[in-house]
């Protein structure tokens, strides 16, 4: 019977393919992957860009002094043309790939949410977590007091497209994380209270309030097709929801520490998770099982990301308190 279960649940193999040691001088708090590079942000003021289409993962650009107090959230559009970053001082910067053809990132202005008070609603408040739509036109954000906003980066940045309240005005629970579905239809947010909300961006209304997690939710992520939402945090469980009916369809259990980061691979077959104890896990959605566990470090992982699939085997990157970028590649012939 043991042999049977072993065969049934055989693991997937990922090998450390490269590590950029001390990529930053402090903790790396956030990662964003484009088709050819990975952006990393840390407690220092600099955002680094490493090429992921070259074997040595060279540093190809540094955006220096962009967030004086350090940067906690970073997002990039899937097409790799737009990025956004949020600093500990509440500063939000937007970036775009230069049209000159150099491939370098350049400033695309800011989003000064704290200043604007639109329509007597008291403004969007200081931004915390952010997510970008596939083409980078829309940015979704959370605030300390639980407000969720969607912005049109190509339109008037002084006002929000959608404004969702998750509690009575200004007293909602801290929005720790946010995601936009790839088709841009839904916004999902995870909160300190354990609440997970899904908003419908076409109707501008709350679609679902999802039950299940009692402790702070530190990561939410839509599957590529937008049919599933994964949410995880201090409970150590990854809760899986069906976005069509707003149902809790299952849990992935196995982490024994706070889960800090989640990401789906391109095909939606695998989910990657990172935790406070330095462990990264790959979960097979089909089998509802953990198929690989990696712990290069015992220090906290703050961010983990798949690299968009290219011709080579699928890869992912982990980073956190050890200040390094560690790249893993799927082993062939397993």
């Amino acid at each position, binding site marked *: 019977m043991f042999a049977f279960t072993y065969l049934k649940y055989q693991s997937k193999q990922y090998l450390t393919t490269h590590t950029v040691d001390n990529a930053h001088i*402090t903790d790396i708090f956030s990662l964003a992957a484009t088709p050819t590079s990975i952006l990393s942000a840390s407690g220092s003021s600099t955002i680094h860009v490493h090429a992921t289409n070259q074997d040595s993962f060279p540093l190809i650009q540094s955006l220096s002094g962009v967030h004086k107090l350090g940067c906690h959230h970073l997002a990039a559009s899937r097409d790799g043309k737009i990025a956004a970053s949020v600093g500990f001082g509440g500063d939000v910067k937007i970036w775009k790939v230069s049209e000159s053809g150099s491939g370098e990132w350049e400033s695309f202005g800011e989003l000064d949410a704290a200043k604007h008070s639109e329509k007597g609603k008291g403004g969007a408040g200081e931004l915390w977590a952010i997510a970008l739509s596939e083409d980078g036109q829309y940015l979704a954000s959370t605030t300390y007091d639980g407000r969720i906003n969607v912005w049109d980066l190509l339109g008037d940045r002084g006002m929000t497209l959608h404004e969702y309240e998750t509690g009575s005005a200004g007293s909602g629970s801290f929005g720790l994380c946010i995601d936009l579905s790839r088709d841009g239809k839904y916004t999902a947010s995870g909160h300190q209270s354990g609440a997970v909300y899904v908003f419908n961006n076409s109707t501008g209304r709350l679609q679902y309030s999802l039950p299940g997690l009692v402790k702070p939710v530190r990561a939410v992520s839509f599957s590529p097709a937008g049919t599933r939402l994964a949410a995880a945090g201090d409970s150590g469980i990854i809760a899986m929801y069906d976005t069509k009916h707003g149902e809790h369809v299952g*849990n992935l259990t196995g982490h024994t520490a706070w889960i800090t980061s989640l990401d789906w691979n391109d095909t939606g077959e695998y989910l990657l998770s990172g935790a406070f*104890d330095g462990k990264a896990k790959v979960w097979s959605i089909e089998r509802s099982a953990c198929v690989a566990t990696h712990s290069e470090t015992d220090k906290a992982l703050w961010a983990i990301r798949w690299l968009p699939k290219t011709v080579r085997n699928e890869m992912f990157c982990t980073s956190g308190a050890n200040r390094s970028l560690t790249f893993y590649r799927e082993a062939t012939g397993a």
Partner: protein
Amino acid sequence: MEDLLDPSSSAFGSSSPLPTAGCVNPRQPDVVLQQGSRQNPQTGVAISKIEEILAANIDALNEAQALTIPLRSRRTGKVRPVQFPSTRGADVKKFTALLQILHLSHEALVAGTVITKRSAPLILFPEPQRLCSVWLTNARHRAIYYQNPELFGSQQYVDELVDDIAFTFGLGRDALNIVAASKGLIAGAVSVTINNGSALCCNPDDGQGVLLPNVQAISRINLGTTKWLLVIEKEATFRGLVASRFHETSTAGPGILVTAKGYPDLSTRQFLHQLHTEFPILPMYGLVDFDPDGVKIMLTYKNGSRSLQHEENVTLNRLSWIGPRSDDILGDHVQSSPSANMDETCVFNRTPSDQFSLPQSSASPGRPGDFSPVDVTLPLKAADRKLAVRLLLATIGKDSQCTGSLDFVRELQVMLLLNTKAEIQAVDEAGDLTAWLDSALTKNMNRI
């Protein structure tokens, strides 16, 4: 005991202290006899007033009536009963808080043991009862708040209620064995010679610590064999460590314990600066809460305060932060049990590997998840976040390379990122901080 001391703010929790009153009652005459004439004459009055209230509530429980604590307003002088259950949410909280304060006060008055947060009872002194009760009263005020910070919310809330109770009873606050504390205490095998030639021994046998002398009055300090100095944010923690004679028994060798009870006053900082200057090889460590205020207190000791920048000789360049930091608090205690919060029927994966890797560690014999960080951490409040950002700005602004303050910057950022804070007690073991502190001291001293 732990349960009784830690009623939650829930409806069920709030009734738990009552049985204690019931079982303490019969023993009361013995205790009073034991303590004899040394007791404050008002003690008996306070005890009987508290028991009157508790007994009335037990009766009310039996008759399924609402529970009531009468409270006289200090402003109007009128009695307004605080009821439970109540339609007013504030009343429910107030009732729970009052009941806990009454319970703690009663316990202090009757038994003479001290409870610091989630803790083992501290030792009862063999010395005369009078000393004991002085010590008790000092520790008590802060300790009440730390019994249940989430319930009380602020030290101020406790202060208000304590004064309300004292006013209602028509007694002084001290009659409840509750008083506010004074500043600047030291304990350790140090002898300080005062100008007039008298020597101040900082290691009296009563285990209380002594008030720091004015720095101008000091002519000589003799450190003896002490190996380290620990500055402690909280008085309750200081008293707990002094009571367990940590300054003598630490595995890191004999040392000095100092507290200024929160934000340090000028004279404490001047005294420490003098030690710092005269004994450059004496390592100095700071033990503060893992919250923005803790970091600010560390920075105030280290760099001085902004409002007193004209003051000289108050900084401690070599002071290093012993913790607890995010890793101390979350690292060992993160044992969230996957089964704690989920609906079992929803579990669709039971992989062999993951079943094997379920936490064997669950340190607590009780229900799973007992030691998960949720029990020791609190979310940051808006004011905490503002202070953290201000401190980041001040620290980074001053020193763009952040040399020497990198760890402050890092921990502030992690606090903000996790939106989490914790008190020193988060790293203790059932109220005993000494094991953690021994290893932290040893680790830090070997590093130098």
